[in-house]
């Protein structure tokens, strides 16, 4: 009888282990006490109006792909450079601090490929996100304009053309002198 019970127990536990769903313990541990709001989506739109108001921003601390000092999703602070007016009313005063996000970035690469920084998701007080066209892309110096002609010119002397692969592109930098321009579309939904 004992043998039968042991056998049944073994069968039950083995079937449980086979059917077990692997849980993501890492997520359970690290995000347990963190508030994770649902991201905003943009599915109700009406792009009929093309009236837009430029908003000029200036970064408070420079960022670059060079120093590895940026990460995906990093929050960055900006200052509004000029008053922003709509219908003769100031809707955003110069000097207001606004927050933006490093959406993602790409380090520079071989073949003269430049680094890229993409900024977006600006939180501007008093302005709805859905009414902003705010993707800002900054690229480093593109050296592939030199690399490709040089590579093709050296094809007669193999493998010297391949050596141009080692020419790396420039880093993308956003300095305090750069003007970051985003647009506000007051009539958009």
């Amino acid at each position, binding site marked *: 009888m004992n043998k039968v019970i042991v056998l049944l127990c073994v069968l039950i536990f083995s079937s449980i282990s086979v059917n077990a*769903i*692997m*849980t*993501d313990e*890492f*997520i359970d*541990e*690290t*995000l347990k006490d*963190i508030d*994770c*709001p*649902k*991201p905003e*989506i*943009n*599915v109700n*739109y009406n*792009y009929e109006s093309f009236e837009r108001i430029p908003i000029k921003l200036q970064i408070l601390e420079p960022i670059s792909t060079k120093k*590895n*000092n940026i*990460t*995906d*999703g990093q929050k960055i602070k900006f200052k509004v450079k000029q008053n922003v007016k709509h219908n003769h009313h100031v809707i955003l005063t110069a000097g207001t601090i606004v927050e933006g996000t490093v*959406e*993602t970035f*790409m380090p520079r*690469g*071989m*073949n*003269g*490929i430049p680094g*890229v920084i*993409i900024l*977006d998701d600006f939180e501007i007080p008093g302005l709805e996100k859905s009414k902003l*066209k705010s*993707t800002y*892309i900054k*690229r480093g110096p*593109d050296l*592939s*304009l030199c690399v*490709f002609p040089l590579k093709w010119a050296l094809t007669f002397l193999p493998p010297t053309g391949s050596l141009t692969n080692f020419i790396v592109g420039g880093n993308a930098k956003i300095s305090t002198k750069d003007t970051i321009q985003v647009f506000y579309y007051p009539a958009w939904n």
Partner: protein
Amino acid sequence: MKKIFFTIIAVFVLCLQNVYAQESQPEVQNKNVYKVQAVQYYFSDSEIMDEMKIQEHISNIGFKLLNANKIEKRMVFKYSKKDKLIKGVPELSKRQTVIYDKAIQYANSDDEVAALLAREIVKTAESYSGFMRGFVTSAQIKAAPKKYEIFFDKRAVDFMVNAGYNPVAMIVYINKAYPQKRFDIIGGHNLTSKRLANIYEYIYTKYPYFLKNNEYLTNEYYQNFLLTSQENRKKLQEKIKSGSKEKIKYE
């Protein structure tokens, strides 16, 4: 005699008319048949109808992604039955995203189709930027696809989220559709496991909501990803615990 003669002529003329009538009738009948067949073929052939449905579905999701992300560059989406396995390579010069039959077969939901399309949209949008109306950037993408691969994956995740799709579907889609090579040092593409780990880290960093409330946790393909990515996820765990900003070397 005259009566016989007229009778013969009458019979001859009648016969002649019948002969012409018989000769000309098939043409008319055939034309009608062809017309009817063409109409029937156009409206009832299941293969064509299926293709039209797939094309409509792809275009619908594609344009939703474009609008939700406020992409001002023109591009179109084309479904092709050509047998080009897992290479939805757009013609960068035409800005036409071609989605091949074999690639779409792996997508089981709208989220997964969006994952496939979002990546191609990023690539096509990128072909607009830079010198000579994007010609140089397109050449760079073709010359060094590996460099751009993870960048495109990450940007595609953003596009999916903005359009209301679940970005975890990208992990699911890539996990079941892309093979795993031995090395990626020399080749033109990253190891698929490396891409998946980077996408996972990106979702964890920017959109943790989707991992905390994971709809795909019981999905077989996602479970397989969890099974095969244990080492990489351990590395991410260590990075988060240590608060490091260094880039992880995934395998």
